[in-house]
C-alpha cells in the first residue's frame, strides 16, 4: 500500500510557540509506514498541537513536516492527499446526516463511484446505519468519533492521524473502532494516534512516543520503551508524578 522506504510521517525540529508559551520544542519524529504508532503524554504535552501541525491545520513556528515524502509546506496538496484525519473537539458539517456527510466528502474529494460501497460498509460496521435520519449535531460522542473515522477512511488514505479516538466513548464503540483500525494496518496502512488509554496503546501499537513539555522523552518499539514494566508505570516514571498529600477535610 505504501513505499516502505519512506516514513509515513517525518517531523524535523518542529517548534510551535503561542506568544510566550512554547508548546512544542524542536520535536523530531520519524514514523515508519505500515505501523500502528501511539503518541502518549500528559494534558498540555503538545500532542494535539503536534498532530494539528502535522495535518496542516496549524502553521508551525519552525520545522519541517513530510507526509509520505511530500513536504507539507511546499507540496501541500500532495501531502494532504495521503492523509485521513480525525480531530477531537472540532465540528463537521453538522446539519447533514451520516450518509449525506459521506456523500459530501466523496464529492468534495472527487472520488469515483466505489465510495458508495465503502460508505455502506463503514456505516454498517460502525453501527451508524441504524440512525439514517439523525443529523451529526444530534450524534452522541461515540457516534461522532465513528463518523469521523468513516470520513477519515472513505478515500482510502495511506496515513490515518487520529487525535484521542477513544476518549469518552463506550467499550462497545471502542471495540468496533479498534477492529477497523487493525484491519487498516494489516492492509498496509499507517495509524498515528494520540491517546491517554495506555492499555490500548500497549495492546495495539508497535511503536510509541512519550511526549511531555513539547519534547519527546522516549520513543521506540513499545517493549523497549516499557522496559519490562507496563506502559502506564513507565509513563508515570518518565513524566513524573508529584505525591498527593492527604487532605484532612476530605476525611
Amino acid at each position: 500500500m505504501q513505499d516502505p522506504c519512506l516514513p509515513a510521517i517525518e517531523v524535523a525540529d518542529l517548534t510551535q510557540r503561542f506568544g510566550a508559551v512554547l508548546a512544542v520544542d524542536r520535536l523530531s519524529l520519524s514514523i515508519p509506514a505500515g505501523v500502528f504508532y501511539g503518541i502518549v503524554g500528559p494534558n498540555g504535552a503538545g500532542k494535539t498541537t503536534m498532530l494539528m501541525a502535522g495535518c496542516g491545520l496549524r502553521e508551525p513556528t519552525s520545522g519541517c513536516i513530510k507526509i509520505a515524502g511530500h513536504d507539507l509546506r511546499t507540496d501541500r496538496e500532495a501531502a494532504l492527499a495521503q492523509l485521513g484525519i480525525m480531530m477531537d473537539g472540532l465540528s463537521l458539517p453538522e446539519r447533514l446526516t451520516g450518509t449525506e456527510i459521506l456523500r459530501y466528502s466523496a464529492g468534495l474529494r472527487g472520488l469515483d463511484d466505489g465510495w458508495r460501497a465503502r460508505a455502506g460498509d463503514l456505516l454498517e460496521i460502525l453501527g451508524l446505519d441504524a440512525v439514517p435520519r439523525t443529523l451529526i449535531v444530534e450524534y452522541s460522542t461515540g457516534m461522532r468519533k465513528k463518523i469521523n473515522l468513516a470520513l477519515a477512511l472513505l478515500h482510502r488514505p495511506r496515513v490515518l492521524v487520529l487525535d484521542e479516538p477513544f476518549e469518552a466513548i463506550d467499550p462497545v464503540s471502542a471495540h468496533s473502532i479498534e477492529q477497523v483500525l487493525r484491519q487498516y494496518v494489516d492492509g498496509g496502512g499507517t495509524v498515528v494516534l494520540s491517546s491517554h488509554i495506555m492499555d490500548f496503546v500497549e495492546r495495539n501499537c508497535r511503536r510509541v512516543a512519550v511526549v511531555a513539555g513539547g519534547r519527546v522523552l522516549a520513543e521506540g518499539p513499545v517493549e523497549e520503551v516499557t522496559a519490562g514494566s507496563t506502559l502506564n508505570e513507565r509513563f508515570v516514571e518518565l513524566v513524573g508524578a508529584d505525591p498527593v498529600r492527604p487532605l484532612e477535610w476530605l476525611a
Partner: protein
Amino acid sequence: MTRTLFALKLRLFRNGPHNERAFSLVTGLVLAALVIAGASSAIHGVIGEGWIAVALTVWGGVWLFGPLAQPRHDPSVISREWLRGYPLRSWRLARALSWTELLGVGPLITMACLSSLVVLAAPGGMAAVAAAVAAVVAQVYLLIWTGKTVAALAAWLLRTRAGMTPAAVQTAIMLALSFAGWVPLAAWLLPRLGEGDSALIAARAGPVIDVLAALPTGWGYGAVLAARDGAGTGPVLLPLAALLTLGVLSQLCWIALTARALRRPPRRASSRRPTVPGRGLSLPFTPPQVAAVVSRELATWRRDPARGVELRSAWLTPLLMAPIIAFTDWSWALPLVGPAAAVFGAMVAINTYALDGTALWQLLTTPGALKADLHGRMAAWALLFGLPSIALAAVLWAVTGSPLGGAAVGGAIAAAAAGCAAAPLLALVMPAVGTDARDRIYPGQPAGDPTGGQMTIFPVVLLTAILPGVIGGPWWGSVLVAVLLAAAVLGVTPALTVRLLQRRGTGLLEAMTTRDTAILRAAARTES
C-alpha cells in the same frame, strides 16, 4: 448576593471584550450629544421642540424593538448557565440579577440622551428642572425594563424548536418597518413624488408629534413640558407615576421570565424530529466538488438554527415591504423590492464561515476543497437569494409598469453579483465567532454578532444596486451596465477570496477554536 453579582459584572466588563462595548459607548454618546444639542436649539427657537419628541421616540424604539430585530443576540453579560448549579431559589437569584442589568452601556447613553429633557426644562426654573430630573430617571427605568422584558420574551420563544419561524418573522417585521415603514408617512406628506412633484404638505406633520408625545416613550417629555409651562401638578405627576408603574411591572415580568429560565435544565440536541436525508445534487456545468458544496449549503441553510432564521427573515422582509409600499401612492417604487431582497440576502450571508465554525478543518485538509467550497457557497447563495431577487424585480416591474422597472432589474442583477461575491469575502475578513456549530441547537444561542460585517456589506451592495440606474439611462442601458458590473465583480472577487482563504485559513480555524478573532488581526498584521 446583589453585591457579589455587581462585582462579577464589573470584573467581566473589565476583562472585555471591549471593542463592541466601546463602539456602542462612543456612538451612543455622540448621538446623545446631538439630541442634547437639538434640545438646546429648540429652547432658542432654532428648531421645533417636536423634533426632540421624535428623537426620544426613536431612542425608545431602539430599546423596545432592538431585541426583536436581533433576536439571536443575547445581551446578558452574566450567563444564566453559570448560575444554574447554585443551590439558590431562582426567584431570589433573578431579583438580584435584575439590579445588575442597570449597569451597562445602554442605560448610560440613554441617561445621557434623556438629559436633553433637563435642557428643555431649564427655561421653566428650578422646579421644572427637578421635575425633568425625575422624568429622566423614570423614563430610563421604563425603557430599560420594557426593553429587557421584550428581549427575555424573545429568548423564551427562541428556545423552542419552532422558534426559528417566530424569530424570522419578528426580524422581518422589524426590518420591513425600518426600511419601508417610513414610506406610508412619506407618501402621505409627498403624495405626488412619483409624478416628479416634490411639494411637501407641511400641515399634515403637526398631529404626528402629538401622537408621539402620547406614547410611553413620550411620557417623560410630556411631563417636562407640563412642568416648564406651569400646567399644574396633575399633568406632571401622572405621566411620571405611569412610567414608574409600567417600569415596575416590566421588571417583575423580567424577573419571572429569568427565574423560569434559571429553573429549566440546559437543552440538549435531540432527534425527536427525524430529518429526511437529501439526494445528491447534480448541477449542469458544475464540477462534482462544487455540486457537493452546493448540496451541503442548501441543507445547512434549511436546517441550521441561525442560518434558518436568517434565510427566512431575508425573504420575509421584502415580501412584507411589498404590501406596505403597494397600498400607498408610491406603488411605482415596488420593483425596488427586488434589489432590496438581494441586499438583505447579502446581509444574512455575511457570517457563514464563522457559523460553520471549526468544520473548516475538513476544507483545510482536503486537496482543492477551499476553491470548491467558495464556488459552492456562491452558487448556493445565487440559487437562494440572487436569482430570486432578479426574478422578483422583473415580476414587480411587469405588474406595476413602473418607470423605475429597468433600473430595479439592473439594480437587482448588480446587487446579486455584489452580494454573491462580497458575502464570502467579508465572512472571511470579518468573522463574528460565536458558539461552535456542533454546540448550536436552537436559534436563541449566541452565534456571533455580525453587525459590523452587515454594516459593511450594506452600503457596498446598495451602492452597486444604485449604479446601473444612475449611469445606465434607458432600461436596456441599466441592464447592460448591471451585467458588465456583475461580470467584473464575479471575475475578480472570488480569486481574491480563495487566496485569502489559503493564507488565513489556519488562522481562522484557530480563531474559531479559541473564539478569539484577535488572532486573525495579528495574522493579518504579520502578513502585511
